[in-house]
């Protein structure tokens, strides 16, 4: 074992590593800040929400999205790291998809941003492949026995995004209003989209 094993406060470890890399010219604060800003401001579930809203309102787009998620998502301008190949999983009233990465925390960054804490936690990762119905219920999503559950464990560079059910009572909403309803959790498959 290296002394990487000696426990350090992570904030201090980050500062020490950053300072060593800066001396080598391998890091500069502007680059660090740009990475942070990108995922704090530009890349997040609002991207995926636009994809979902478009699919809900444009049947041809929906067909393209389900046939080739990567390309259809790129139409809206979303691509980049962790989005080399994105497959979209369509929920129906009788079929519910939920996505996990048991081995690390793979996640479709271009459409959903960085994964939330619960997705990266060993509890979700360990349990959703063994007792998904129970896990979803703990999250507040109680599915009927007539709903089939498909769990996807993303273990290659293929990334998965769920196309949730469009909630009833949203027939008159615009695409933009629909996008505002779509939550990150619904695109991972641990929640459904509620009406306005």
């Amino acid at each position, binding site marked *: 074992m*290296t*002394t*990487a*094993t*000696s*426990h350090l406060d*992570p*904030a*201090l*470890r*980050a*500062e*020490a*590593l*950053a*300072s*060593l*890399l800066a001396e*080598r010219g391998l*890091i500069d604060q502007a*680059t*660090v800040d740009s*990475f*942070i800003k990108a995922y*704090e401001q530009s890349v997040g579930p609002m991207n995926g929400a636009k994809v979902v809203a478009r699919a809900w309102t444009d049947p041809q787009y929906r067909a393209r999205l389900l046939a080739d998620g990567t390309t259809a998502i790129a139409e809206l301008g979303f691509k980049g790291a962790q989005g*080399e*190949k994105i497959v979209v999983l369509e929920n129906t009233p009788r079929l519910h998809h939920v996505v996990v990465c*048991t*081995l*690390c925390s793979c996640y479709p960054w271009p459409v959903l941003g*960085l994964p*939330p*804490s*619960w997705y990266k*936690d*060993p*509890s*979700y990762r*360990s*349990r959703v*492949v*063994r007792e*998904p*119905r129970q*896990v979803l219920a*703990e999250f*507040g999503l109680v599915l009927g026995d007539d709903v*089939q*559950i*498909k*769990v*996807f*464990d*993303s*273990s*290659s*560079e*293929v990334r998965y995004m769920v196309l949730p059910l469009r909630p009833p009572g949203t027939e008159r909403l615009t695409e933009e209003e629909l996008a505002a309803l779509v939550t990150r*959790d619904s695109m991972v498959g*641990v929640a459904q989209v509620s009406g306005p």
Partner: protein
Amino acid sequence: MDGIHDVGGMQGFGHVLPLDAGPPFAQPWEGTAFALGLLAIRAAGANLHAFRHAIERVPPGEYLRGYYNRWLIGAQILLEDSGIVSAGQVSARAARLRGAAAGEPAPPEPHKPQMASGGAGNLRAIDRPRAFSVGDRVRVRDLHPAGHCRAPRYVRRRAGLVAAQGPGHVFPDSAAHFLGEDPQYVYSVEFDSRELWGPDAEPFSLTIDLFEPYLEPAT
């Protein structure tokens, strides 16, 4: 590697965390850690698989201390592997930042690993036939690799059906060790929950992407 990272099906982690939509970085150091990881990958050979394998080698007690902690220590391990920093340097620098008058060891000799690349990303065209078709019944081999591997324990020795033919893909088991891209076909394989967890399992199906070398025909 049968490490702490391979948590699928493990029990004892308690309730799931709440569906909290907090900011991406709960504390400033987490953002720094995130960026350090990306920059460490870049500095150490642009090999995401090697970074994943470094995270797998984070000591288990540290691994369980949160995502950006393991991400950060993974970055350090990757940089140590490449001779870009040494663990002694990090400890000494940390001590100095805390005000100790500690001397620091000399920087190590860099030996950044190189691997021939067939291009950006991980998708690759493969010009040999596929071993399996959609609908084929396959079994996950009883693998016991010492190194990086993307077949978790909970599917090994289990039989499922090929649900989709995925892309050709850089083989993580080879690439993570800078041994070459060795591209392999990916398959989405679907398992019945009872095949994984026994007859009392909740009814559901589990689909996971598995590389061709992980699979054999199920008899």
